[in-house]
């Protein structure tokens, strides 16, 4: 046990350096403070262990709640997001800007660009809103039906709070006051070649705008940079994609050449920028059934994201920042 104490003492070079060497009393005080802090640490660890025991028991006996979408907030927070947090903080060093544009309560629709071969950008956005937003909001994403057809992926997606991108689900979530995320470019965006990076693809049929207008929900255009460079897709093997039933089979500078190492994303520096909300509540009741208005609104959201992307790219010192 004393070993552990010495280790803790030595492993903090900053504090050791800051302690004035001359005075014996301050040294003793510092040591006392260290001991105090250490016992607090120990208390924290014990508390965490105790909580883990409680968590484990409740998971084993099924004593937790899932909502009608299959969302399991506790599992998301404590298990699913755990491996993503180091990726968010230390690997991509994600900078979330404009979080004040996301309301603390009530519905809003986050619309963002999609890139990076695998949907890490969506997970990072979810994590930005969960960890860095003052209200720790859960982002409920709308995913392609492929997500819900695939084993394992579908199970995790439902537990993480996501659901199928369809009008009834979008409207249900928004009218429940949830924060909903959509990536309207879909596979066209996430699977585009590296040469087309940061060029927004077509925005589908604008179903997400209609859902927002019908429920009077503000739309938050969101631009993500950095994701394009994390898995630069330089090629595609259509035959393998067809065999595996996937929309594409990516080839990156490291995948599949380096085997499992190819799954490690490049450590690009990310920025997620939430723009000012576009209000839809004042458009009136019939607005959702006016295709012209919906298409114009879709274009406006798309343009806003594209402009923000260009602005952020100009300001970016380097890809790996």
């Amino acid at each position, binding site marked *: 046990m004393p070993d552990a104490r010495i280790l803790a003492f030595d492993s903090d070079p900053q504090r050791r350096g800051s302690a004035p060497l001359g005075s014996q009393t301050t040294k003793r005080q510092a040591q006392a403070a260290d001991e105090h802090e250490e016992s607090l640490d120990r208390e924290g660890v014990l508390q965490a262990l105790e909580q883990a025991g409680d968590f484990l028991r409740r998971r084993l006996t099924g004593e937790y709640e899932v909502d009608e979408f299959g969302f399991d907030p506790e599992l998301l927070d404590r298990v699913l997001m755990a491996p993503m947090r180091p990726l968010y903080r230390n690997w991509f060093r994600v900078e979330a800007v404009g979080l004040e544009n996301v309301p603390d309560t009530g519905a809003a629709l986050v619309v963002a660009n999609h890139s990076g071969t695998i949907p890490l950008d969506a997970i990072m956005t979810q994590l930005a809103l969960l960890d860095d937003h003052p209200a720790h909001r859960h982002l409920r994403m709308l995913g392609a039906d492929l997500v819900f057809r695939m084993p394992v992926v579908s199970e995790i997606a439902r537990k993480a709070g996501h659901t199928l991108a*369809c009008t009834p689900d979008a409207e249900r979530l928004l009218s429940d006051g949830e924060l909903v995320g959509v990536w309207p470019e879909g596979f066209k965006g996430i699977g585009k070649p590296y040469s087309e990076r940061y060029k927004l693809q077509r925005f589908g049929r604008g179903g997400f705008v209609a859902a927002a207008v019908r429920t009077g929900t503000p739309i938050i255009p969101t631009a993500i940079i950095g994701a394009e460079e994390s898995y630069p897709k330089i090629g595609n093997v259509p035959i393998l994609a067809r065999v595996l039933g996937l929309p594409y089979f990516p080839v990156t500078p490291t995948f599949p050449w380096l085997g499992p190492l190819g799954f490690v994303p490049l450590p690009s520096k990310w920025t997620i920028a939430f723009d000012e909300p576009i209000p839809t509540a004042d458009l009136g009741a019939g607005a959702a059934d006016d295709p012209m208005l919906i298409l114009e609104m879709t274009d406006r959201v798309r343009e806003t994201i594209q402009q923000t992307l260009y602005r952020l790219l100009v300001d970016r010192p380097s890809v790996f920042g």
Partner: protein
Amino acid sequence: MGRTVLVTGAARHLGGRMARVLSSETTFDRVIGVDVVPPRQDLGGAEFIRADIRNPVIAKIINAADVDTVVHMGVIATPMQAGGRATMKDINVIGTMQLLAACQKSTSVRRLIVKSTASVYGSGPRDPAMFTEDTAPQHPPTSGWAKDSVEVEGYVRGFARRCPDVAVSILRFANIIGPDIDTPMTSYFSLPVIPTVLGYDARLQFVHEDDQLEITRIVAIADDPVTGVYNIAGPGVLSLSQAVRRLGRPSVALPRTLLGAAGRSLGSTGLADFSTEQVRFLTYGRAIDTSRVEQELGFAASWTTADAFADFARGHNVTPLIAPEVLVEAQQRLSAALGGAGRVIPSGLRVASHA
């Protein structure tokens, strides 16, 4: 003048309970239960007539008794109960056709209440999270009870069009569960080891058998005749893995194709039903929106999905492999050990460092 109600499927558990419940209502002078086999339980004040709804004799009964309300609970869920899939389909589809034909001929029938199932929505990856009564199924069922129910509903809708003066209500129930009822779902959860689908975790909803009877009673005795389709389920959702954990039973995750094959061989032994539809349901799950029945009929299920499931486990004596109390105790012991450590060890250390 009092009314007369006819309950089909009265020999089986729910039909029998329904007849008994309705016979204690003052609204009805007569309650007539019909089925092909004699009832196993006491029908209370209800009369029982042994008749096959697949036979035109049902029309004679309706006419002779001046039946004004028909509660159709005669749709059978498993081949096991009917003695083969062919007979089951016969009873379900032909029986319903005969019953509807008899209702159409009769001058007395004013209400028809059909017990249907949420499985008519099917289940699959392209479904919305919750079905409302108006959601068009993306993956319509292709076999078994679910397909029979789709066909039954089709005939009932046709009947409603032809006879606009009869109030027709279709009640779509989530999986009915309870302490006494036996269904494919209860036998599934009573297996010693519960097979699940690898990589999927279905969302399940249950409705307690008492709630099933209550809403049917409300619709049967309502002053204003009720027409339309209503979803009924207990509030809340359980995921399949969560349900298994609540039972405390071991489970084994099998690839979907294997589960189907294993199910077919198990199916012949009668242990559990692993039809294509059931496996699809255990893969993708399903949840239904009950706001229409809440708003229009003011009905709120008194058992939540989780409570109904717990009541099933209690009634069927599904004993957990490891009792939850053991785990609680283990947790308490852990906390005690940690709590004790948290206070004792640092002070002990301080003593040691002084010495």
